[in-house]
Structures are given as structure tokens and as C-alpha cells.
């Protein structure tokens, strides 16, 4: 594919379209069953392929494709599939006003079935049929597996990346594709064993699971499952067991033991002379293999590594749109979606979070819908709904929290800020803090509470994430630090009349 070999991806959308091509062509090569969704996006693809040969900027691409569509008159097709691929806040708004093709079937949010369909489409569990934005990674995993099966050799692969970047999902997809491919290409389909390591009661249990899958009736208690496996893979194989074995190990870092023996043995399995297993490990840490497997490395059997980066803003946007495209109507304001994608991408790039935020925005919208009696202008989830949802997810409401605290706890916070301000320090102990607190209390003619109660209040504050109380043998020696910005505290307390004079001499 010429398109996929574009060396530098100047923008996310180009990556997206390129990858779509790639996948589609792969799909065509395989001749896999074409459902209506795929056929539709294929037709959308045609237009984009036509537009691609000039590797232009995103906006150019967009206009180009529109022009083609207009000229060809594939209007409905386009409006269903294409235009959501590459929106941008700037272009979209002008296009919304200008482009008549954007008139879609309207969404009726008062219909519970439709709301339900939207929620379902946005749920984490409902995985889409084809995975967008991860085509490269998926392809490299698939190629690796194919190569292993073609050459009938073993291999190991390590997939790493942040949570919520689609690792398990795409490996699962690869598994399905591989079995399909093997059937078509005339190879014996590999046995597939996927294990989530959190479900193992102890790390070495993984070998017994493998051997159980490989030889379900093997009853040999003389040696351990690991020894069985090693024996099996180091002897010349019998004809009966000619199948490849694909082992998918999810959350691989749970196999870590003190001496890393299990991890090491597992990777060593694929290096044995007659080994037939394809090992795919999935975990969050990037350097698991480097850190814990020096011996494997020295044998020059270091596993290939595929890294899943956190999703970028455009990718998140694209994935959400791909999920919603099935429904065929506008649910979110484009700018709202973009806002969500930007926020999530900036925070973590976690797709789960983005989906959760969208869902929560729909709930905000629903709540408003319930309150609104007159049926005006509540047809779409707007920017402000998304804003509420995002602020719920990302911005802890420190000011509100502080203002709703009990008074003595507010005094403690005030005394912490004051103490740090005066002493130019950023840590203190409970004993010192108590003294500073008593001072403020006395200054305002409030009886201070006892030491025990004071400690309890400090714990409550640390539970709410405002203070950090360390560990110490003696209560008085416990280290206290402020977890939030001091100016936040001052800002929050300023609005309470009681603290006016406490904070006054702070500002001198």
C-alpha cells in the first residue's frame, strides 16, 4: 500500500484515513464477509482513496472529498459514513451552515429506546467490529503471528501501553483474524489460550493452564507442569501435536515473582528448540522485558515489543464517532465531542474515560430533559452538558469541598496555610500544627478541641485529599503536608466571614 508508507504523519486525520485504507484492503484480500456497515465505509473509502493521492492537508482532503461526493451525487452515502472522519472545530462550524448534506434523521431523545441505543454504543463492553486507530499495531501483531505460523517457529511478543488504549481489544481481534486467516491459507489453526493473570491464584499456575490446554488428558504427576512443557518443547515433536499454540497473557506483570522465575520460564518456553508457542504478553509497563529478563536477552531471544501510545485527540474523536455512526443521527454537538477528546487526551488518553465522559454527558442531558417541560431546543447534547460531565470527571471541586467542611476543619486548613506562609516551609508535624491551630482558636475565642479529636479531624481531611498525613510512631510526630494549592484554600476561605481576620495578617 502506498498510502500506509507515508513516512511522517503530519496530522491525525491523515493517519486515520491511511489506516482505514490499509485495513480495508487487508479485509478485501482476505475476502472476509462484508456486512452492510463495511460496505458502506468501503464506498466512503473510495472517495477518500480518490482524494488521497495528493497528500494534502487535512482541510484540503476534506473539501476534496466533499467535492467528489457532490459531483458524484453519492449524497446519502456520504452523509452516513464519511463526513465524520475528519471534523475540526473550525471547518465543521462553517460547513454545518453551508453544507446541506448535514441534515440527518433527527434524534428523539425522549424515546428511551434511542437513548438506550446510544448508551449501549458508548459502553465499554460493546466493542466495535473493526478497530480504528490501532490498525498499525494490529497489523504488526498479526504479521508476527502469521510469520510464526508460516515458518512453523515459535516467537514471543510483548504488547505494552497505558490503560485504555485498546491492547487487549486488538489482540483479541488479532486472535480472531488469525484463525480465519489460517483456515483460508490452509494452515492448521493454532490453539489459542488467553489468560488474564489477575485470575491466577499463583503465578506458576499459568503453566498448568497451558499444559491443560495442550494436552487435556495428560495425567502425569511425576513432574511439574513446567517440566512437562519444557520436555515437550525440547524433544522432537510427534506428529500428533503439530498444532501451534498461541498463548495470550493479559496483565503480564502479575506474573512477577520475587526472582522473576515464572516470567523468565515463560519467555524461555518460546526459545526451546522444538517449541511451538507464540507468546503474546500484554501489560502496562513499557520495559517489563528489559527489566526482568536479562537472561532471555542474553540468549538473543528478546521478545518483540509493540507499544500502544495513548490516544491523541483526533483518535479519540474518531473512535467515538465510529461508535456513534451506526446510529445514524447526531447526538453530540461536534464541538462538544472535540472538547471531550481534547480534555481526555490531555489527561490520560484513556479511551474508557472518554466513553465514560460521553455517557455522563448524556446523563446530564437527560436530567435537563426531564426538567424541561417545554419542548424547545433540546435535540442534541451541547457543549455545556459536556462541560459539566468533564468537570465532574476531572476537576475535583476543591473550593466547594473546603467551603462545606466543618468549621474546625476549616480552621485547621487555615492554620496549615498560615503556618507554611509564616515559616516558609512546606511540611510540619501534627504537634506543631496543633499549636498553630490553638492560636487561631484562641484569637477568635473558640475553645480548641483536644488532641485526639484534632488527630481525627486531620485524618478526615486527609481522607478528602486535602492534607497528607504521614506515618509515625508517635501521633505528634506525624508529618503533615498540604496536598492542594494554598491559594485555593485562601480563596475558598475568603468568602467565609469568620476567616477574614485570620487571613488578613496573612496578606501583609
Amino acid at each position, binding site marked *: 500500500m502506498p498510502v500506509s508508507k507515508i513516512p511522517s504523519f503530519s496530522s491525525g486525520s491523515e493517519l486515520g484515513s491511511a489506516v482505514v485504507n490499509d485495513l480495508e484492503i487487508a479485509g478485501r484480500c482476505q475476502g472476509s464477509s462484508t456486512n452492510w456497515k463495511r460496505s458502506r465505509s468501503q464506498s466512503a473509502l473510495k472517495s477518500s482513496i480518490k482524494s488521497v493521492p495528493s497528500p494534502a492537508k487535512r482541510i484540503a482532503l476534506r473539501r476534496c472529498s466533499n467535492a467528489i461526493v457532490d459531483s458524484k451525487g453519492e449524497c446519502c452515502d456520504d452523509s452516513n459514513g464519511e463526513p465524520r472522519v475528519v471534523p475540526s472545530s473550525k471547518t465543521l462550524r462553517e460547513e454545518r451552515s453551508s453544507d446541506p448534506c448535514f441534515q440527518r434523521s433527527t434524534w428523539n431523545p425522549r424515546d428511551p429506546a434511542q437513548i438506550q441505543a446510544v448508551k449501549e454504543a458508548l459502553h465499554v463492553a460493546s466493542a466495535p467490529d473493526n478497530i480504528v486507530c490501532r490498525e498499525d499495531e494490529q497489523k504488526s501483531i498479526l504479521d508476527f503471528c502469521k510469520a510464526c505460523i508460516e515458518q512453523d517457529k515459535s516467537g514471543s511478543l510483548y504488547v505494552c501501553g497505558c490503560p485504555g488504549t485498546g491492547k487487549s481489544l486488538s489482540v483479541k481481534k488479532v486472535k480472531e483474524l488469525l484463525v480465519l486467516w489460517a483456515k483460508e491459507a490452509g494452515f492448521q489453526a493454532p490453539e489459542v489460550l488467553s489468560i488474564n493473570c489477575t485470575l491466577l491464584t499463583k503465578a506458576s499456575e499459568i503453566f498448568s493452564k497451558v499444559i491443560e490446554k495442550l494436552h487435556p488428558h495428560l495425567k502425569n504427576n511425576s513432574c511439574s507442569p513446567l517440566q512437562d512443557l519444557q520436555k515437550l518443547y525440547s524433544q522432537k515433536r510427534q506428529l500428533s501435536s503439530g498444532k501451534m499454540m498461541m498463548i495470550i497473557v493479559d496483565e503480564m506483570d502479575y506474573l512477577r515473582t520475587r526472582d522473576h522465575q515464572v516470567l523468565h520460564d515463560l519467555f524461555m518456553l518460546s526459545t526451546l528448540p522444538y517449541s511451538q508457542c507464540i507468546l503474546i504478553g500484554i501489560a502496562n509497563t513499557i520495559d517489563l522485558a528489559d527489566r526482568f529478563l536479562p537472561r532471555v536477552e542474553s540468549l538473543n531471544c528478546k521478545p518483540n515489543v509493540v507499544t500502544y501510545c495513548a490516544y491523541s485527540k483526533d483518535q479519540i474523536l474518531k473512535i467515538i464517532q465510529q461508535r456513534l455512526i451506526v446510529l445514524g443521527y447526531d447526538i453530540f454537538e461536534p464541538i462538544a465531542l472535540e472538547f471531550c477528546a481534547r480534555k481526555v487526551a490531555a489527561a490520560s488518553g484513556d479511551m474508557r474515560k472518554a466513553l465514560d465522559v460521553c455517557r455522563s454527558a448524556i*446523563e446530564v442531558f437527560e436530567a435537563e430533559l426531564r426538567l424541561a417541560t417545554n419542548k424547545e431546543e433540546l435535540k442534541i447534547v451541547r457543549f455545556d452538558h459536556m462541560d459539566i460531565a468533564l468537570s465532574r470527571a476531572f476537576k475535583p471541586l476543591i473550593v466547594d469541598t473546603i467551603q462545606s467542611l*466543618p468549621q474546625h476543619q476549616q480552621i485547621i486548613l487555615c492554620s496549615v496555610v498560615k503556618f507554611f506562609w509564616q515559616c516558609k516551609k512546606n511540611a510540619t508535624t501534627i504537634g506543631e500544627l496543633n499549636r498553630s491551630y490553638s492560636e487561631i482558636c484562641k484569637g477568635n475565642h473558640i475553645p480548641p*478541641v483536644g*488532641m485526639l479529636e484534632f488527630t481525627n479531624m486531620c485524618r478526615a481531611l486527609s*481522607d478528602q485529599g486535602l492534607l497528607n498525613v504521614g506515618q509515625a510512631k508517635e501521633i505528634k510526630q506525624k508529618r503533615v503536608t498540604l496536598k492542594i494549592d494554598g491559594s485555593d484554600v485562601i480563596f475558598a476561605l475568603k468568602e467565609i466571614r469568620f476567616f477574614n481576620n485570620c487571613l488578613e495578617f496573612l496578606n501583609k
Partner: protein
Amino acid sequence: MAATPSKSRVKPSPPAPQTPASGPRRSLRLSSTPRTPVHCYDPSSPRKSAKKSKRSLLKTPAFCPITPNLPESKRRRRSGPDSNPSKKKIYFKRVVFDGVGFEIGDAVYVKRREDAESDGDEPEVEECRICFEVGNFVMVECDDCLGGFHLGCLKPPLKKVPEGDWICGYCEARKMGKVVELPKPPAWKKIKRTAKEKLLSSDLWAARIESLWKEPDGTYWLRCRWYMIPEETAAGRQPHNLRRELYRTNDTANIEMDSVIRHCFVMNPKDFFEANDEGDDVFYCEYEYDVHWHSFKRISEIDNSEECDEGAGNDDEWKLSKDSDSQTDEDSEKEEDTAQGTSYRKYQTHQLAANSRRGRIFGLQRIGAKRIPEHVRCHKQTELERAKAMLVLAILPKSLPCRTKEMEEITAFVKGAICDDQCLGRCLYIHGVPGTGKTMSVLSVMRNLSSEVEAGTMRPYSFIEINGLKLASPENIYKVVYEALSGHRVGWKKALHHLNERFSEGIKVGRQENQPCVLLLDELDLLLTRNQSVLYNVFDWPTRPHSKLVIIGIANTMNLPEKLLPRISSRMGIQRLCFGPYNYQQLQEIILTRLEGIDAFEEQAIEFASRKVAAMSGDARRALEICRRAADLADYRQKQLSSCTKVTSPDSSAGKCLVGMADVESAIQEVFQAPHIRIMKTSSRLSKILLVSMVHELYKSGLSEITFDKLAATVSSLCSSNREDIPGWDTLLKVGCKLGECRIILCEEGTKHKLQKLQLNFPSDDVAFALKDCPEVPWLSKYL
């Protein structure tokens, strides 16, 4: 049974005399004709001795003079005088006692009380309910009332015993609702109840022999496991109970052999239904009853699970114990021959007692709830007492104010997850400081929803509530969840496997279709393990397509999800709900709703308490506790007052007593002040001076320790400068020792009192706080 005689026969020692004799007799008994089992004594004997005293009749037949059909040698294994005065207990596998062989595993009747009101002896043979004769005719038993009827006495007479269930005409008529008059016995005849009837009317006990031994003093004892009749269980007799059903309990007792009456036969269901003519003493036992937990368990399941659940390791253990058992049996049997001699006389000395150690056993009387004394029930509650009762934390108030918004949100969350056809898994994390009604709100929401389910407006779901504090280890959560879903109790590893199948692959658990499941995890932070795998698994399930799992997690810390591994917090979703601390209006409202209709508190008192609590923690529990304690104090005050004034004017006590500010104030003092401060405040004058001088000296020196010598010098200098009496050395020592005992100060171990080092156990601030404005010794505050 068969093994024992053969074993003893192989032995070189003189063969046990009981074996040849007991074998045939027992077998004879088992194969005896229906309704006329041949027993160790003549059936006619009870009737002859009917006039004898109750006690002696209750005694085992050995004491009856009429045992002509038993050869003397068989009656008791006595080979001679006690030749082996062993100090140890000797255990037996089989004991022949009064001519009857008792073996481990046998079921026996046991006398219930020493002074049991028994109507004479228990005849072995039941009389016909119609003609009240025994006769040698075939009898048929009614399956309902268990009465026996001669086939010939029935109307119409039966030719042979009918197949299947048979109910007598009287019971049938009674079931139809008629008043039935049973045939009255002839006036001269005394109705005797059989042992079976006594057992079923709980005048006797049945027990299973677990072990048999001889005490050093020569008496035979046995350890027995009780059987219970259904009436004695907590559940009472259920409609499905058979008349002859017993429950095996897990309660055992050691009893003396003398209390044993004779054999009965407790059978498992299979044997019971096959046994048609085993006699009257046949019982059915399918379940074991736990007397402490009032739970039932199928015996066959207990035995099976013990074998298959724990795997090979346990099996070995079991075998091992069996082996050791048999070993001891062999040992004991060897000894048996030499140590047989229990003197016949000895038993006769205890002739009148069912048990020679009176009042030592009879464990079943301990079971069961105590009677509530009548005067407690009919005591009329005063307003204050009602108020106190309403303020107890355990009471569930009718309405839950101040959390309506949060409860609506929870309701919307659960409904949104469940209502639709395809339940999508979700998580909600609820956080807030203690005592802000987190758990209570969720539970009340779930109650409302379950009433909606009953009304049919909502899909049924299963609700599982788990408190992290109640789990022995975090892994046990799998066990609890699985048990709640399927009713089976398995180990956590197995449960994890099943749950994973259920949630991630959608395989059915149990017979029903998988319902949506709401899982409430209280004290979520306690489920943290070192690698957090438990939380990972739990929060991973809702992200699976077929899980139908909704999780509500509750914890105190706001930032728990951020403290977890990122992969877990990613799965946990973003839905959070914060329960802020209550402010004083809310607390006031909570207390007032609880006290609705009870006029016991002054308005201001409640406001004072709620303001005080709201200023510190906003913990509703604490506010309620303070109010309750204040009510306690007021109640106490009132009672004292009324006891004083009762003499003069009894009417004045009827005047209402409201809980006032003073009561609340003193309750707050109790709750908010640590005990050591109260001790310091109430300690003697001299100890206050000592404490203050200690604080003073420590402050001056900057050290953390002080010798007693120096302390004494400081005390005397303080006293002299403030015109106090200078205390003597040993008075001071005594005061110091007392404070040391209270652990207000820490004394160094040692004998040299003069140089003993002293240390304050509490921060000097607390001492200062406690003694700052002490009215007794006002000059103390200048040294603090």
C-alpha cells in the same frame, strides 16, 4: 460389626466372651418380626413390674430381676476382680453393658432428666390403638400419627400391610376437619408410651455413640452426639418433616453409660425407605443441624464435600486419623481383657440415679433463647426511654432526611443500569467522611427498588452486600459473591473461576437465567491487596459484554481511585458521588425526624448538640450518640429525683423532664474529651501539682525525662512559693505510683525510687489543657 469379633478372635489372649453371644442376639433383633422385636428382656416384664418405682423402671434392664433368657456370662464381661487399676481412661470400640453390646456409631435412647416424668417404663411393643392389646397379630403403622393398628381391628379389616403410605381413619377424618373421638382405652388399663413416643414428645433423647471409655474409677462413659426432633430446632416442625425424622446435631456430650436405655436405629433416607419391618425404633435422619447457627446441612453432602473438596491432602489426613483410631482400638481391646472388671455392685450403689454425676450434662437445655421476663415486656416506656430507643444507631428511621439528592442519584444510577433489557455493567464510587449516611442511603435505595421489583415495575435483580471489614481476607469476596449468586459454598479459588465464567463469558450460574447483579462493596479500601488483583478482577467484570454487573463501592477516602493502579482506576469509570459532612441544620433535622412525636428534648439542646458536632466532624452518628447519652443522663437525673421525692409527694415525679442544655453539655464533655484528660481533671490536688511541676520542669530542661528526686524538689518549691503544704516524700511517692498505674506518667522499672526516671505518657499540651483552669488550684495555670 463383623470386623470386631474376628479381630478379637485372632488374638492369643483369651477370647472376649461377648463376641459369640452378642452376634446372634443382635442379628436376631434386627431380623425380628414387625412390631415384636425380641429384646434383651421379656416383653412381659414391664407390665409385670409396672408398679415399681419410676426410677428403677427407667433403669437399664440389668437391674431388673427378670432376665432369665440371658446367660449370666453374657450379661457383662466380667472375668474377675479389677486386676488393672489403671489411672488412664481406656477406650473401647465395643462395650457390653448390662447384656447389650454398644458400639461406636450405634444410636441409643438416653434418659432425659434424672427426675423425668415418665409414665412408667417404656414397653418394647406397642399396643393397638383400638383394642389396646399387644397380641401377636400384624400391626400397621399410620404414617401420620404413628399409631399402631392391628390389621384385624381396623374397619374394614386389612388383609395385609398396604404398599406405600397409609393413613389411619382417624387421621384422615381429622384432616377433613371433623372432630374425631379416638377409642378410649378400658379404664383399668394404663396407657404406656413407647420409647419412640417419648422421644418424639421429647421426654427421651436419642444419641449416637461417638466413643466409649472407662474412667479410672471403673465407670463406663460414652461421648454421644445428640439427635434432635424437629420440634426442638429453631425452625420447629415443618410440614415436610416426616414423623420419624430426626436431625443429627453437632452438639456432643459425655454421659455415663447408666443413662443409656437401649438401642434405636437411625437410618439414612435410603435405608429408611427400604426398612419396612425393623421395629418401632427406626428413625429417619437426612440432615445435620447446627445448634449454634440453626442451619441444616445434608449429611451426605457433608461427607461428600469433605472428601472431594479438599483434594488428596485431606484424604490422607483422614485416613491417617482412621488408622490411628483403629490402632487405639486395638490397644484398648488388648487392655480390655485385663481391665474388664467393673464391679456390678458399684453400679447398684447408683441405682437411684440416672447419672451418677448429677447435673453434669444434658447439653440441650442450654440451647434456645432465654425467656424475656414478663415485667420487661409490660413496662410502659416513658418519653425519655422512647427517645433513647429512637436514638440508638441501630434503629432504622422511617424517613431519611437530608440525603434525597444523593439517593435520587443512586436510584437513577441503578435504574439506568438495570432497567433496560441488556444490563450494561457500571461502577459508582461513593466517598465521604464517616457518619454521613453513605451505606444507609444505598441500602434504603435498594429497599425502595426491591419494592418496585415486587410491584412488577422493574426487572428482578440480585443484590449482594459485602463489607470489606467483614471479610477475613480480600480474596474471600469471591466466595461470598459466589455463594450469594449460586448458594454453594466453595473455596475462593474455585469461586473465582466460576465467577469469571459467569461474568466474562456469560455462563449461567445455578439453574436460573443470569439476573442483573448489584454488588455493594462497603469499605472498599480494605479490599486492597498487595498487587490489587482482587480489585482489578472485581472492576474488570462490569466492562465485559455479558456481565450484567453493577458495582457500588463505598469508602471514606476521596482519592482512592487515584491511589489505585491506573489500570484499575481506568476500569472504575468516572462516576463519583460525594457525601459531604452534614451541617448543623441537617444534623438537627436528622435528630428531629427521629424524635418525631416524642417530647423529650428542648429545642436548643438539639441545636446545641448538632452545632457542636457540625463544627468538628459533621458525623451524624456522633450527634445521635451525644443526644442519646444526654437522654441517659436526664433519665438518670429524673430517676434520682423521683426516688427522693417519692416519699413526700408521689405526683411530682409525673412531671415531665426534658433533656436540657446541661445534659447535652455533659454528654459532649464525655464524648469529645479523651479519658486521660478526664482522669487528670478529676485527680487529686497533689497529683495535679505533681503533673504541673513535671510539665514545668520538662519544659525548662527541654528533656523528655525527669528523675523522681528532681521532681520532688520542684513540687516542694512550687508548693512553698504558693503557700501550699509541702507534701512528705512518701506521700509524693504514693501519688506518683498512682499516676504511674493510670499510665499518665511512665515510670522506669527499678527499685531506686529516688533516681527513678519519669516520663509523661501524653503530650504536655493535654496536661495543660486539662489543668489550665482548674478551680481547685488556680495558681497552676501560671506554670503552664
